[in-house]
């Protein structure tokens, strides 16, 4: 069977803050897909929850003109990622092929340097081995490694789904199409605020959204080249 030659992908995500309601379905979806352990009340309250995506909620204005401002924050899969050069053992490493930042759990030795250097604070650490009582461990996703104590982890853009999608397309002898690959957060998002796709394809939905006049990137001034594009909310539509 002829294997289809693939072009270099640049996976990207667009988050439309105008339709993001802050409902947190993405947070739960991510946890259920990626075998993220739960930590309990005390630990999560002490900043040790392992949420790969979290929704930052700021308050703007004063009562009665007050309004929450939601901003889902996850690994931005930087093109020029601050976490990568600081890892002494190449556990945080760039994927040349998929153009995302990888975290290789079995290589990680747990210096937590990458987490300090991530301006988006999107990395979380396994402070303990988290107990999942039987039979709850049955739902663990076999496509995602269960991390042990002492390793860093973060959003992977659901790389297991990326590989599964590519594998499926390859097996069927066709190129990967826009919408074939959907990470768990985008799949769950009730308002379709999260769009995932190939930024190198100008026709993809995510590329079209990235060209919107409302688009911006978080902490762009740092030169990290984030692959997550935010679209301004609050009805600020460009002309």
């Amino acid at each position, binding site marked *: *069977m002829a*294997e289809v030659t*693939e072009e270099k992908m640049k996976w990207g995500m667009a988050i439309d803050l105008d339709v993001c309601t802050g409902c947190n379905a993405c947070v739960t979806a991510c946890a259920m897909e990626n075998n993220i352990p739960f930590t309990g009340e005390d630990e999560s309250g002490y900043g040790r929850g392992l949420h790969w995506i979290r929704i930052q909620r700021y308050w703007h204005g004063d009562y009665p003109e007050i309004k929450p401002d939601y901003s889902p924050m996850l690994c931005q899969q930087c093109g020029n990622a601050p976490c990568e050069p600081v890892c002494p053992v*190449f556990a945080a*490493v760039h*994927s*040349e*092929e*998929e153009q*995302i930042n*990888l975290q*290789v*759990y*079995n*290589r990680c030795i747990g210096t937590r340097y990458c987490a300090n250097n991530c301006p988006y604070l999107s990395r979380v650490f396994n402070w303990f081995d988290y107990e999942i009582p039987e039979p709850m461990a049955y739902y663990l996703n076999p*496509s*995602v*490694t*269960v991390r042990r104590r002492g390793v860093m982890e973060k959003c*992977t853009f659901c*790389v*297991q789904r990326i*590989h599964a999608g590519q*594998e499926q397309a*390859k*097996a069927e002898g066709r190129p990967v199409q826009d919408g074939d690959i959907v990470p768990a957060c985008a799949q769950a998002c009730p308002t379709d605020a999260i769009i995932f796709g190939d930024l190198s394809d100008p026709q993809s939905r995510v590329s079209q959204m990235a060209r919107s006049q409302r688009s911006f990137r978080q902490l762009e001034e740092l030169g990290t080249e984030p692959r997550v594009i935010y679209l301004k909310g609050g009805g600020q539509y460009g002309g």
Partner: protein
Amino acid sequence: MDKVIALTKRPAFRIGVGLVLLVLLAGAGGGLYLTQTPPPQPIQFPHNLHVGIGAQCQYCHPGVAWGPTAGLPSISKCWGCHQQVQKKSPELEKLAAYVSRNEAVPWVPVAIQPDFVHFNHRPHVAAGVACESCHGDISKMTVAEPQPRQNMGWCLDCHKTMAPENFTRLSDCSICHY
């Protein structure tokens, strides 16, 4: 302190230390040896015989063609042939017993990767890699035997020599680790 030095000079002490070291070494060596020996299987399945009569690997392990896992044959597949074949050997009687009890044979997987390695048979088979390249010369084995030194360098070496033009992709960490 002087007493301690004197103690170290006594032959009994030195022999004792030597023995402890020997035991540790033997333990380590034995452990290593155990990881390289085939685990006990419920049936001493003769791969060599089946390959010898011309059975194709994929007949019993069809999963390689479409997915990550090769899969193991069900008793119905075994029995499909073996009810026609004479069953004199004690191993075949074991199979017959499983069939009569309608019980699956509790095969022990041999070629397994650690949890953090995601291996997929399909692309390897599609790329024309022969089963023997990784699983050894099955035609000379009875039960499947683990292959030594199948480490990351071994994977990378093959990726590099077999498909140098694709090595960027084939050496991407996320190809196996996620």
